[in-house]
């Protein structure tokens, strides 16, 4: 060992060792960071930033003029769409794996269509449905409309995830279940799906986070104030005050939802690892 190192250093006296070089590169990075921070502090007017993004009186107004309701609506839209998407997504995944070819085709077409079309278009279309077909009403409007529209889009994404999860469950699991006398449907329900969902909990939670943010598209439906979600709510107050504070607050509210979800996934992953 020692001899090799010595030989290397002796052979190329001017070259730095890889460790020394990495050290030096790190040092340069720290220096750049320091310069940027110093420039920012010197050039940015802290008080102006505060008055644009964190105006105290506007924080007051935002918090008291219906923020809880907007937050609740965002959660309701998201959660309903997730449940809808999960159910339909599971159905689509099973169709994709079906022995019956037409089921596979239908599921594939559905999945490709809704993954290729903007969610905004789907939402707009659903908003216009009741105009196009007078008398057509979704239950719990506008919640039913949002759940269906966003759920149908996310189902397409979830279907592929769920299908991958089902395929990731070892074949021996189905065989053991069938050997116990379980019909194939029961084996799927009791043995395969629980394991598949455990495997795909992280990507599904990711989908839930994406849906939380997608729920901000709901504004295109032209809702009444009581149905506002965070984005629409923050934007309206921001507009009428010419200030960003309400939007910033809305943004933080999204973090209140999404960050705990991320932590939850970590914990579930750790637990699943233990059980597997």
């Amino acid at each position, binding site marked *: 060992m020692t001899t090799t190192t010595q030989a290397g250093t002796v052979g190329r006296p001017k070259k730095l060792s890889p460790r020394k070089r990495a050290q030096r590169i790190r040092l340069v990075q720290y220096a750049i960071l320091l310069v940027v921070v110093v420039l920012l502090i010197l050039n940015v007017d802290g008080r102006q930033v505060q008055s644009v993004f964190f105006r105290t009186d506007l924080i007051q107004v935002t918090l008291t003029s219906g923020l809880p309701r907007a937050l609740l609506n965002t959660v309701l839209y998201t959660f309903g769409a997730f449940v809808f998407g999960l159910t339909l997504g599971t159905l689509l995944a099973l169709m994709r794996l079906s022995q019956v070819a037409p089921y596979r085709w239908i599921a594939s077409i559905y999945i490709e269509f809704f993954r290729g079309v903007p969610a905004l278009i789907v939402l707009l279309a659903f908003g216009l449905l009741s105009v196009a077909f007078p008398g057509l009403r979704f239950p719990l409007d506008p919640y039913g409309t949002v759940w269906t529209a966003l759920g149908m889009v996310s189902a397409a994404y979830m279907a592929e995830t769920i299908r991958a999860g089902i395929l990731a469950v*070892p074949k*021996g*699991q189905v*065989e*053991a*279940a*069938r*050997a*116990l*006398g*379980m*019909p194939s449907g*029961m084996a799927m329900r*009791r*043995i395969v799906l*629980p*394991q598949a969902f*455990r495997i795909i909990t992280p990507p599904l939670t990711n989908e839930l986070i994406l849906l939380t943010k997608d729920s901000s598209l709901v504004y295109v439906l032209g809702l009444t104030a009581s149905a506002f979600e965070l984005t629409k709510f923050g934007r309206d107050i921001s507009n009428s005050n010419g200030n960003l504070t309400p939007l910033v607050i809305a943004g933080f509210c999204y973090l209140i939802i999404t960050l705990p979800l991320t932590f939850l996934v970590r914990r579930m992953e750790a637990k699943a690892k*233990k*059980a*597997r």
Partner: protein
Amino acid sequence: MTAMTIPAQIPTGDRADEIQVYDLHKSFGDVEVLKGISLTVRTGEVVCVIGPSGSGKSTLLRCVNMLEEPTAGRIFIINEEITDPDADVDAIRTMMGMVFQSFNLFPHLTVLQNCTIGPTAVKKVPKAEAEATALKYLDEVGLKHRADAFPAQLSGGQQQRVAIARALTMNVEMVLFDEPTSALDPELVGDVLDVMRRLAEIGMTMMVVTHEMAFAREVADRVIFMDGGVIVEEGHPDQVIGNPQHERTRTFLNRVLHPTHVHTGEEDAAYAARHAAELGSGPEASGELPDPALRTDNPGRSRL
């Protein structure tokens, strides 16, 4: 030749015949893996199936409970034809347990739930009753105290014993074993074989694919040697293992009992040693063994 002595006509109607296989063929694509297998397993009988890797042993076992669909031939389980297109395969399967090489416990369920899910979900046995049965069998395989553990927390040997308890909790008439100890560390094999031996003693009907020659010799009522998708030789273990008539059987036994590359690796050496030891302590160790050197008694394995 022994295979020819099996009656070729369809069911005897004898309740004592639990598994009857008639001229079973199975192909995967163009490859014929089973080329006309006929056999009978009678109530309380332990039949060990031995043979080289790829000879179709697993496929035969999997055809018996229809995990593989036979290409041709008929199979009767307690006089119900499981190969009949109108047969209630799921119902027939509840009468026979299957123990896999890779255990295949359900990882999302506890040990106890692994045992009770069959009875409760399939046979609609009340939960309390199923749990009582499960705990009884878990006790018998020595794992009652791990009832609330998850499979991943158990050793391979423990998992396999749970798998046996899972099969038994269904109150099955017979159990199919597909190389139940092949995936286990050598020191864990004994416990699983012990459980199987006790199961045989209480009269369970068993069809066991195995490479454990000492076990086959001691426990089996009959040994079937398969090679190339046919039954080459069949009969009492002392005959098939102790005094094989066919060259193919002799070659196979020689290879299993006396691996040529013992010196190439510790694993092979351990494998050879295990088989040597097991065979040496078998009840009929004085029979014509393929290699006399294997007859050394080994007190360490005497419980086998």
